[in-house]
């Protein structure tokens, strides 16, 4: 345990907590991820705390806490860089640690919605600037000089007139006793030297040497291993079981069933559950539990229709979970029938009905996409140790602050008796925003009165729910006799939610516009998947626009730029979500960087797409060729506008990854059902993109501006699908409307 000194009480902190994340850390329960010893520094036993994010020793060792869960978006590096920038220290000497879960001290601590850098940008700059100011005040007092005469550089304070200088560490004790100042002037972003320049992943050396970083790696004395034996199909539940053979297997401690939520439990928005009656096997080791679970003799039965009360961000609603064993064919059929019925109008501009009636040409196309599994490389797992009066849970979760109230309710413990420690996540993509694995682990621990690690096998992880919904959308465009686009209509639906973002491009650029949505219930549990809804919309809308441009005889980039010009100069309707200039900006940048229209690129089948989501703008040009008779994306040019880029090389990595992910899901991704059973249950059946299918080159360009940062994890992903679809048209000579484009196993040979 570290010894942290501070003169402040928690009460005092709370008074000054207008500075988001300011405050004190009385104790630090460490995962001990970045001990100073790793950097060859003797472990100091005395830390002084300056705001909740920063600790300094008298020897000038500086530690910064990353507040937000890390799932590969590199916040462990980029968020501390923001603090270090304003604090003015030597980045190479900083120790970075994952912060504890404490939403009062460390802000929202939520990874999702491409929000990490966006929401922490200002609080972290303020924290760094405030701490620097406290150190300068302490120095000014010690030297008896005006604070205005002091300067800092790389962890040192200087008083030029007297020639005095000292380390931050030498003033840390005094500074820790000062009030946290508010309203300190922040640096000019143009002068940044740490942020906006590429820094290596602070956990890199641990990753390449196999150190325990992930939830699955976490160990605890006396820890048991648990697995849940779930129904083989959606729409089924546990009827009865015989565990006699299982209990005879070596290493097995217990088999029991328990309820995830009590009857009438009001679910929070991220409390998604797939199966409420859990059949649990507990034992000594993972392999023994895997084996013993196979020996269970279980009777399953079909469910009846149920209603669940969900009190999420959108308010309280009752959700119907229908009975039945769903199959992909019947899902498609149900959706096709529903699509013919009237839908809810989400936005209407002008008089689209008349415009379509009077059109010289109407183009109508229908797009579909299947359920997807997240397939994080680290299957779901969580550690829990619940006793009568407290709970410790450790693992990989995107939003500890969302799961805490749920744990409090189901365990009957006050929130301050629940400690959540965040490990690195082996991927998230939305899956780990949901709390069921945490809650399940906690309930199992409570039941067996022992520390336990709940482990999902790959099959459990892939088939147990929280999938990207199944979507469809029909797009219509009306052209007049002069081939002008006069009306645009989208009607989209899905199981169990529609995908439509009604106020996004091309809304605002067409006089007559109609967006509609419909929804059908399903018992397949769904959840957020990298760029929810956008990940379907961008594919459908951006390949539809390509077809419209062709019908109009226009270059696809030119058509978009013309529409955006209209959207800027004379926007149609209200509530247009996007900035037409920034949207056009990424198109212009990708046009230039890809050499769009240049003869030397003629050998490629080129597809372009652009999209706006999570407050950022993305455009891609995809260059496709045939390799071994199959379409292959050889090169990609990407243009991004996410405002200021904190860590450019890491940001480039993320965009490259999103492009690869997009190509893979566009070509191959899909989870089918047969009588409620997921057809794909491991990587031998669920096709994922592999290295030989990845492009040779992905060139990423960022629009250079000084706008506060917006999202980056999600925005580059959705338009990849559209660009791939458009390049595929050039390659194969026909349009592809059903995702995945090149996986006949999923798509019933419709595209093959």
């Amino acid at each position: 345990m570290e010894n942290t000194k501070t003169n402040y009480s928690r009460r005092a902190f709370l008074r000054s907590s207008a500075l988001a994340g300011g405050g004190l850390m009385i104790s630090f329960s460490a995962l001990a991820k970045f001990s100073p010893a790793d950097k060859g520094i003797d472990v100091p036993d005395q830390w002084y705390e300056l705001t909740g994010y920063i600790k300094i020793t008298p020897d000038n060792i500086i530690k910064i806490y990353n507040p937000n869960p890390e799932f590969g978006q590199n916040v462990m590096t980029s968020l501390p860089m923001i603090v270090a920038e304003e604090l003015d220290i030597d980045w190479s000497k900083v120790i970075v640690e994952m912060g504890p879960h404490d939403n009062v001290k460390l802000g929202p601590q939520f990874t999702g919605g491409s929000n990490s850098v966006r929401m922490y940008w200002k609080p972290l700059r303020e924290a760094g600037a405030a701490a620097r100011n406290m150190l300068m005040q302490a120095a000014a007092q010690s030297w008896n000089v005006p604070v205005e005469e002091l300067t800092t550089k790389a962890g040192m304070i200087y008083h030029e007139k007297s020639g005095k200088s000292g380390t931050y560490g030498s003033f840390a004790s005094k500074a820790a006793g000062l009030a946290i100042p508010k309203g300190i002037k922040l640096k000019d972003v143009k002068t940044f030297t740490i942020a906006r320049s590429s820094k290596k992943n602070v956990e890199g050396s641990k990753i390449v040497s196999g150190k325990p970083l992930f939830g699955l790696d976490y160990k605890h004395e006396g820890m048991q291993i648990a697995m849940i034996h779930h129904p083989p199909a959606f729409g089924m539940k546990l009827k009865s079981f015989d565990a006699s053979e299982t209990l005879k297997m070596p290493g097995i401690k217990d088999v029991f069933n328990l309820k995830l939520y009590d009857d009438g439990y009001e679910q929070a928005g991220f409390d998604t559950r797939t199966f409420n009656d859990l059949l649990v096997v507990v034992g000594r080791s993972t392999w023994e539990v895997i084996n013993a679970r196979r020996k269970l003799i279980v009777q399953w039965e079909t469910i009846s229709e149920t209603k669940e009360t969900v009190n999420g961000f959108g308010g309280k609603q009752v959700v119907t979970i229908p009975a039945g064993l769903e199959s992909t064919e019947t899902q498609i059929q149900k959706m096709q029938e529903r699509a013919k019925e009237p839908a809810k109008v989400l936005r209407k501009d002008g008089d689209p009905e008349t415009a379509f009636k009077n059109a010289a040409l109407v183009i109508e196309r229908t797009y579909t996409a299947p359920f997807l599994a997240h397939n994080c490389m680290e299957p779901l797992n969580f550690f829990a140790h619940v006793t009568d009066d407290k709970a410790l849970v450790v693992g990989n979760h995107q939003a500890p602050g969302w799961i805490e109230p749920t744990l409090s309710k189901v365990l009957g413990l006050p929130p301050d008796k629940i400690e959540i420690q965040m490990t690195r996540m082996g991927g998230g993509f939305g899956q780990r925003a949901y709390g069921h694995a945490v809650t399940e682990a906690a309930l199992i621990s409570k039941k067996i009165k022992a520390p336990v690690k709940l482990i999902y096998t790959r099959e459990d992880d892939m088939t147990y729910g929280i999938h990207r919904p199944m979507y469809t959308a029909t797009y219509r465009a009306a052209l007049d006799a002069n081939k002008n686009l006069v009306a645009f209509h989208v009607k989209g639906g899905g199981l169990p939610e529609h995908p439509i973002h009604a106020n996004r491009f091309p809304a605002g650029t067409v006089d007559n516009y109609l967006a509609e949505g419909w929804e059908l219930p399903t018992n397949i549990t769904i959840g957020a998947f990298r760029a929810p809804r956008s990940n379907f919309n961008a594919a459908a809308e951006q390949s539809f626009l390509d077809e419209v441009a062709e019908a109009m005889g226009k270059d696809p980039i030119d058509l978009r730029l013309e529409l955006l010009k209209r959207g800027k100069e004379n926007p149609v309707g209200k509530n247009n979500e996007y900035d037409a200039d920034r949207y056009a900006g990424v198109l212009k940048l990708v046009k230039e960087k890809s050499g769009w229209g240049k003869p030397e690129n003629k050998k490629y089948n080129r597809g372009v797409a652009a999209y706006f989501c999570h407050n950022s703008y993305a455009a891609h040009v995809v260059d496709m060729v045939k390799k071994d008779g199959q379409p292959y994306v050889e090169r990609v040019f990407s243009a991004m506008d996410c405002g200021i880029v904190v860590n450019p090389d890491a940001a480039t990595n993320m965009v490259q990854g999103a492009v690869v992910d997009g190509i893979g899901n566009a070509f191959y991704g899909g989870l089918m059902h047969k009588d409620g059973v997921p057809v794909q249950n491991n990587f031998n059946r669920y096709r994922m993109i592999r290295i030989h299918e990845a492009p040779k080159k992905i060139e990423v360009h960022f629009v250079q501006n000084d706008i506060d940062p917006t999202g980056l994890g999600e925005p580059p992903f959705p338009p990849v699908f559209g660009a791939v679809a458009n390049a595929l048209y050039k390659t194969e000579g026909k349009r592809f409307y059903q995702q995945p484009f090149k996986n006949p196993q999923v798509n019933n040979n419709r595209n093959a």
Partner: protein
Amino acid sequence: MITLNINKKTYNVDVDPETPLLWVLRDVINLVGTKYGCGVAQCGACVVHLNGEAVRSCVTKVSRAVGQKVVTIEGLSENNDHPLQKAWLEVDVAQCGYCQSGQIMSAAVLLRENKNPTDKDIDAAMAGNLCRCGTYLRIRDAIKLAADIQRKG
């Protein structure tokens, strides 16, 4: 009791000989750098070296490792200084990082057999390792950089 030689150390473990090496490494010996990803030899997160050859430890019975030399990511180098580890850091390959120890272990066999691998060689050798984050381009770059480092000694 089964006797194993892992990373030049001897371990005596009391496990069913049918147990996959992966779970012996992770659960019994506490070497957790070798990852569980699929359990069916499809993702490569669990690759270790058995007498220098890459094997999927998730489908390799521990009995098969008896009398053999097992090397895991923890034993790939003394000081985290294998050319691949250096190159992985230089290129900053990882996103979530979960698959990377398996990637490196697969790449290590390639690099031993082929001092100057082309993209095509790399694609062929690494096609058994999944990366959900999509870091494949950087994996190629890092392997080529490691080959450079190896050549220059």
